[in-house]
């Protein structure tokens, strides 16, 4: 600790500490309360996230490196804290009615979710490769458990096992990459690696390059870049829908936080080496994600492939390695998590008991029974397709403009063509909802969706997401400014 004031250091991680405290409270409540413990756990978790969000907001503008340079608090980390915590609150709100219906253990679910969020936050603030690894594991292991929480559903278990095995594989890759980097740079500190590269040492060092490649692959698993995406559709389909929503929003953002901090910023001198790699990954990811999504019949699988494709768009923004690119990626991730949580919110609301009725076929004529959810879904689908005046357009606009500015015209051309392809499968959901009539009498038993019970939480959450997207689509200046400001502390030079 070397003369570091422990209290000052602890304030740097105070949002995480708040979450950990909430976790402990949550577990205690689950163990010792007799009645109403579900509600108590849930309320403690939401309050914990809100408090952590407030703490993060009050830390805005503060720049600090703590715990022997393991953790770096800056606007970049805080921006991601915001994403994780809002995503966490939204997930909790979306989950409550679902958990009750599926008789899932609320206390465990909430506690595990909080741990996972704190792991994401450590990833975003990590300034040392070991810290990156710790954060990643702290984030991932709880998610494996969450995926398996629907114990009676074999699909849920299957998805958890798949995710665990492939996740372990990814962790191994990442760890191996870290080891290689350590062996060439003699440090796992990002600051030290950056300094070595700045002074020209290590430029072109093959071991370091191999390490960098493995780190990209390891993170690529988490954010589901092609060809590391194999697990995504199965896990997204099998996991309980709220967990899928959380994975698609939080894990993706956390993975990209690491990718930006470790590769794009700390190794920016190597951009001539990683830019072509990211170019290829971005192109592959967009093409495979969008084209395969075309043939999906299950809406969760469709959204899984769509989430792969969106990782590709973020990578388009990052490939140039410019400030505008990082800003665009931040904006994209922010908008993406809102539209994805919103879309999954509608899926949750319209799903039947046992997480059924999630085939796109099941959406036929649903706009008649649930006009507001259908309208919100229309906003999410148009936004995911990137059509103005929704937030999704703003995200794509910035991502592609970063690429065009840096001269990556062809990458941008692939991007826009794939966006056009994506419109097809997003529209199909709307076609089913709005333009086709529900088949009467063919279903063995009618779907009794959550939406029929008028769940206030889900409704609020979906409405918030839809309005936020329309706001971001017409008034993007606030987000653009915050994202630009976020960059200020990220570049150490």
């Amino acid at each position, binding site marked *: 600790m070397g003369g570091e004031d422990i209290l000052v250091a602890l304030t740097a991680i105070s949002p995480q500490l708040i979450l950990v405290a909430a976790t402990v409270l949550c577990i205690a409540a689950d163990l010792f309360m007799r009645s109403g413990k579900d509600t108590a756990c849930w309320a403690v978790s939401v309050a914990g996230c809100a408090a952590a969000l407030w703490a993060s907001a009050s830390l805005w503008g503060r720049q600090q490196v703590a715990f022997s340079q393991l953790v770096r608090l800056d606007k970049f980390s805080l921006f991601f804290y915001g994403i994780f915590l809002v995503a966490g609150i939204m997930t909790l709100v979306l989950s409550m009615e679902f958990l009750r219906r599926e008789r899932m253990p609320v206390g465990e679910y909430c506690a595990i979710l909080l741990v996972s969020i704190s792991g994401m936050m450590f990833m975003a603030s990590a300034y040392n490769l070991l810290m990156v690894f710790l954060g990643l594991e702290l984030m991932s292991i709880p998610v494996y458990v969450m995926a398996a929480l629907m114990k009676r559903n074999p699909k849920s278990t299957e998805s958890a096992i798949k995710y665990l095995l492939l996740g372990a594989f990814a962790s191994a890759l990442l760890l191996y990459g870290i080891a290689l980097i350590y062996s060439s740079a003699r440090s796992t500190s990002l600051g030290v690696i950056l300094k070595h590269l700045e002074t020209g040492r290590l430029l072109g060092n093959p071991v370091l390059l191999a390490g960098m490649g493995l780190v990209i692959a390891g993170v690529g698993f988490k954010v589901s870049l092609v060809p590391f995406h194999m697990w995504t559709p199965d896990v997204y389909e099998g996991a309980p829908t709220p967990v899928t929503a959380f994975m698609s929003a939080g894990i993706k953002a956390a993975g990209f936080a690491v990718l930006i901090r470790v590769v794009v910023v700390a190794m920016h001198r190597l951009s001539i080496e990683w830019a072509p790699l990211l170019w290829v990954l971005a192109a592959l990811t967009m093409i495979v994600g969008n084209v395969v999504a075309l043939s999906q019949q299950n809406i969760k699988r469709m959204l899984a492939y769509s989430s792969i494709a969106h990782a590709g768009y973020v990578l388009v923004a990052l490939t140039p390695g410019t400030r505008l690119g990082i800003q665009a990626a931040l904006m994209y991730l922010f908008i993406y998590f809102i539209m994805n949580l919103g879309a999954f919110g509608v899926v949750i609301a319209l799903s039947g008991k046992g997480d059924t009725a999630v085939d796109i076929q099941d959406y036929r004529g649903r706009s008649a029974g649930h006009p507001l959810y259908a309208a919100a879904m229309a906003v999410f689908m*148009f936004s995911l397709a990137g*059509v*103005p*005046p929704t937030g999704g*357009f703003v995200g794509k*606009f910035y991502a*592609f*403009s970063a690429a*065009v*500015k840096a001269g990556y*015209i062809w990458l*941008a*051309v692939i991007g*826009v*063509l794939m*966006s*056009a392809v994506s*419109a*097809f499968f997003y*529209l*199909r959901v*709307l*076609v089913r909802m*709005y*333009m*086709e009539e529900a088949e009467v009498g063919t279903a063995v038993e009618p779907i009794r969706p959550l939406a029929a019970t008028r769940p206030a939480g889900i409704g609020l959450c979906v409405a918030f997401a839809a309005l936020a997207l329309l706001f971001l689509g017409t008034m*993007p*200046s606030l987000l*653009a400014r915050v994202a630009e400001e976020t960059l200020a502390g990220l570049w150490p030079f």
Partner: protein
Amino acid sequence: MEFLGNHIVSATVFLPLVGAVIVLVFVGRRSEAAIRWATLLFMAATFLLSLVPFLRYDPQAAEAMQFIERASWLPEYGIEYKVGMDGMSLLLFMLTTFLGPIGIACSWRSIETKVKEFHIAMLLLQTAMLGAFVALNLFLFYIFWEAMLIPMYLIIGIWGGPRRIYAAVKFFLYTLVGSLLMLLAILYLYFEHHRQFGFYSFDLFDLYRVHVGLGVEKLLFLAFGLSFAIKVPMFPFHTWLPDAHVEAPTAGSVILAGVLLKMGTYGFLRFSMPLFPAANEVFFPLIAVLALIGIIYGALVSMVQPDLKKLVAFSSVSHLGFVMLGLAVGSMQGVEGSVLQMINHGLSTGALFLIVGMIYERRHTRMIADFGGIARVMPVFAAFFMIVTLSSIGLPGLNGFVGEFLILAGTFKAHPVMAAFAASGVIFAAVYMLWMFKRVMFGPVDKPANRALEGNDLTAREVAILVPIVVLIVWIGVYPQTFLRKMDRSVEAFMARTGHAGAVVAAQADAGLLSEGSQQGIEKLGRVERR
């Protein structure tokens, strides 16, 4: 009041949006009459509001672009809210507000499901279309341009015919592919502007000044051009049009033909041609030849259509070919004729779709073979149908003639062979329209279903829909100066920018000839033909 006076364009653009929100929030789903009346009221108010810029527009002013409004939006990226209109956008703007209430009135009986959603979609569509015609910042334009897609997609897909889903998705994807490439071209131009002038701007007039090498310019022109060519639609990008028209409900067809197709030609006029004059020069043969193919091909395909609506749809391909030809030729007469022809096509084809819709509501068929002798049982209907048919053919004294005459005259000066080919399109138009008219309206009333139409002639509502259109059809045919005068300056500005600078001097010399002289010429020709 003064605030409104200074923001008259924005007020007009966003009034339908306000209407949409009011209908959404305050009018109950079940009170369908209230929804219809409220929407009609907002559309009519939008039209009345748009008369203000029409009356106040000063065609003599040095600056063609007037009523400019700007507001800060994302200043550090050169994105601002900037709208304004010149003579050309003014006319298209008026056309849009004029067709708005008609679209609502013609759906009074035919739209019976999801009434609230339909009217909200129509209002949103109106705002997006109006915005696209007046946007002077490319970012803003792109937003309106794309936003237009959503309500139209829903209108076709929800309230359309049996193959509506196929048609709607095809319409959406076709247009989306084009516009996404345009987005990249816009971005390229934007960064190029920053490189050359040191600040970011999406402002159209800033981007006019950017110079890029011919090779790049050609690519940019193609990226913009593809997007607009799909919208026009030019041959060979027209295949979405018949599907969309046939499946769309009447109001959708009217707006689609009346306004949306004009977005494509307007895009050429405002964006791709003036932004990339050198490439425009290079691609002139391509555009002109595609336009000619469109004219003749559209007419030939119309001739063999068994379905009334499809016939009208293909005739649009032919008519829009004329518009593109006039723009490509780029002479004063050609361009003025093109803009006027855009208005004419909006009126006469819009009216044709209305008429097809009216007969469809009575007979539930659109097949020409199912009709015959309708003129005997529905005389009022027949009279309107006749006027509109003749206007579409281009009979002197009605609007279609003026536009086509100007385009052909403009083309003939520079490219007589092209003019000859194009003129054949006029003849074909007479063939397919009159033949269709004969089969539908004349002959014996040999089908009982047609005889049953006796006493089921147009209602007062339907007459009220058609009368304003017919009035304008005759007005433009007899006294086009009201409209041509408005755009003289704007067309000169367009020609100066597209590099037909020499032509501008000549055009200014015979500007009087155009406005007064050509009118005499038109009348003279009309007299000759009538004899």
